[in-house]
């Protein structure tokens, strides 16, 4: 999909601050100088093309008393697809990336309780037969999230 300047403006404008109102797309469209129908059709097209991975509220598991943990597995290359399917089947796995290292699968567990992290990791180890290394954050210096589109 080729994005035009309007699509890029939408991506920049709508990363946060989507209105909590009855006709939020109409409000957002007005701020962008678009019609509600145009905004909806562009968002639908970008979602279908995978340019938008998700649209809506983002929940913070930690603020609900839950926990996040970065985890990694060294997956043998010939088992990668199988292990990927097994790991992604867990609802606790929120993101998962393939990376260039012997530890080649990096995912984030998001659970409703602190104990849920260890429990999910043990279940993934049982399902895959591979060690899950846990990298909980000890200290966070910065989280920024803004994409130049």
């Amino acid at each position, binding site marked *: 999909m080729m994005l035009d300047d309007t699509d890029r403006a939408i991506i920049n404008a709508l*990363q946060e601050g989507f209105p909590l109102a009855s006709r939020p797309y109409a409000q957002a469209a007005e701020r962008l100088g678009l019609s509600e129908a145009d905004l909806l059709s562009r968002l639908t097209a970008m979602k279908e093309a995978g340019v*938008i*991975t998700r649209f809506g509220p*983002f929940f913070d598991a930690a603020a*609900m008393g839950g926990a996040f943990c970065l985890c990694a597995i060294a997956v043998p290359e010939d088992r990668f697809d199988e292990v990927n399917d097994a790991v992604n089947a867990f609802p606790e796995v929120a993101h998962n990336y393939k990376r*260039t290292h012997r530890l080649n*699968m990096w995912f984030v567990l998001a659970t409703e309780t602190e104990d849920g992290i260890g429990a999910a990791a043990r279940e993934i180890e049982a399902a895959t037969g591979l060690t899950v290394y846990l990298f909980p954050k000890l200290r966070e*210096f*910065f989280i920024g999230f803004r994409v130049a589109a």
Partner: protein
Amino acid sequence: MSISAQDRTLIEACQGGLPFVPEPYAAIAEKTGMDEAEVIDRLAALKERGIVRRIGIAPNHYKLGMTANGMTVWDVCDDAVQELGPLVGAMEAVTHCYIRPRALPIWPYNLFAMVHGASRDEVEAKRAVIAELLGDACRASDILYSTAILKKTGLRLKKGAS
């Protein structure tokens, strides 16, 4: 968990995202048995409490040309990392920065800094600046490029869990 049963129902109804229809909160309300005003009020309250971090788009970096995404990792002396970490985190090129535990022997690194760029050359240049900042306090480093997004979803609550 410090959320009510109604909030939980609402979070479950929203975790797949908002539909692209003129009245998305009314559509969510229909799934929950609440009315639209209650959905909007509850989401506003959850936002106030920080349980909703933001409402909007999660863009796909790759499809937007940010094809190089390097997780730079550093083995920094324990007595220096608390002082140097904030300086790395403050760099414009760095989107996330954390101290995490080492997992010896496979993983000697304790400082993680995520760097995005349009090319690996751009990411490497940013990595060199971090290396210079860390100086002798850094004993070893590596960079892990992501080569595929295998999964990216919001938080998924288990159905029926309490």
